[in-house]
């Protein structure tokens, strides 16, 4: 077992004390893109995952140049400590974290508990959009060892080379529903990738939205045979819930070889000829 890296998490109290420090930039990234406007951590920037953290012409992660522009206008340079948080226990904060690591940003952290904990604690909220002095940002060469593409997943299914972790809800895993309740159905078939283990993302978190301890996470994954001894590929529906599990496995448990399959079920569940398993 590799060492854990607890410095990737900061508490709500730490953020309350340091949100506007020089060299620190707090950024909110939500599933519900209007949440930022309903009140955010004072001094925080807000990023929209549907327009700013993706390529809007090709289904892909944010291109390097676009990321450089986003970070630059957010007043972030290569030395800035970026603290991410968001709704749904940090789903899309983890998505942003994953992409920032792909492009090599060194100091990225997540506010443990996210927006839910901040609100529940009755902490200050601001509704104004802060402006930041423009900065220059240079993205690194993308590190795609953090990302799984379809061919690698197919090879893993065929050769059992990697452990597949399906982090969706049990009802999505079994094919009882095609999307989380209330959200649009985005696939043609329900079920899961053959051989995948069902470990819903929410099991990484406590009721207050904070991450579980190292020992609890180790037990959770160990019980399903996921110990870090073999490569792990996490997936969900569009790759954001699985980026949270990727974060927990890589940065809280210290697994070396963990990838996020962001094609996820919207790719596999729509793919002509792809085998689907239903328990």
């Amino acid at each position, binding site marked *: 077992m590799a060492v854990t890296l607890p410095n990737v998490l900061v508490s709500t109290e730490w953020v309350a004390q340091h949100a506007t420090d020089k060299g620190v930039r707090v950024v909110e990234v939500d599933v*519900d893109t209007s949440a930022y406007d309903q009140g955010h951590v004072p001094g925080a920037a807000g990023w929209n995952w549907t327009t700013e953290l993706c390529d809007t012409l090709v289904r892909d992660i944010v291109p390097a140049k676009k990321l450089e522009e986003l970070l630059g206008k957010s007043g972030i340079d290569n030395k800035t400590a970026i603290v991410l948080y968001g709704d749904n226990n940090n789903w899309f904060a983890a998505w942003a974290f994953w992409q920032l690591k792909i492009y090599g940003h060194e100091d990225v952290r997540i506010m443990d508990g996210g927006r839910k904990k901040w609100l529940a604690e009755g902490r200050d*909220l601001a509704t104004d959009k802060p402006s930041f002095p423009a900065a220059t940002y240079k993205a690194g060469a993308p590190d795609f060892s953090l990302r799984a593409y379809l061919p690698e997943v197919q090879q893993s299914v065929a050769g059992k080379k990697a452990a597949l972790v399906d982090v969706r809800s049990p009802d999505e895993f079994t094919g009882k529903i095609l999307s989380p309740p209330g959200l649009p159905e985005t696939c043609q078939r329900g079920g899961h990738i053959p051989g995948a283990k069902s470990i819903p993302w929410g099991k990484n978190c406590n009721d207050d939205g904070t991450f579980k301890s190292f020992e609890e996470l180790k037990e959770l994954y160990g019980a399903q045979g996921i110990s870090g001894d073999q490569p792990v590929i996490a997936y969900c529906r569009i790759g954001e819930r699985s980026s949270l599990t990727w974060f927990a496995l890589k940065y809280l448990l210290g697994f070396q070889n963990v990838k996020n399959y962001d094609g996820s079920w919207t790719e596999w569940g729509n793919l002509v000829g792809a085998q689907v398993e239903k328990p």
Partner: protein
Amino acid sequence: MKPQDYSRRQQELAGWQVMVETYKLGDLYHCSIANVDPGARFARGNGATKEEAETSAIEKATRYLAQTRKFEA
């Protein structure tokens, strides 16, 4: 500003368990509704009163939830 009158409760809506979260910021109440499993916010509403905000969010949530189909696993 500090959020006021914060509340969070779980209830059933259109056959699904959802979490209703409401708070007041300034003069406006904000309500959001998330499914319990997996926990995604999918409807929200605003209003001058808590009831107005929640009624608006619940109306939208009920409409969205009605479109979620269940299949034999």
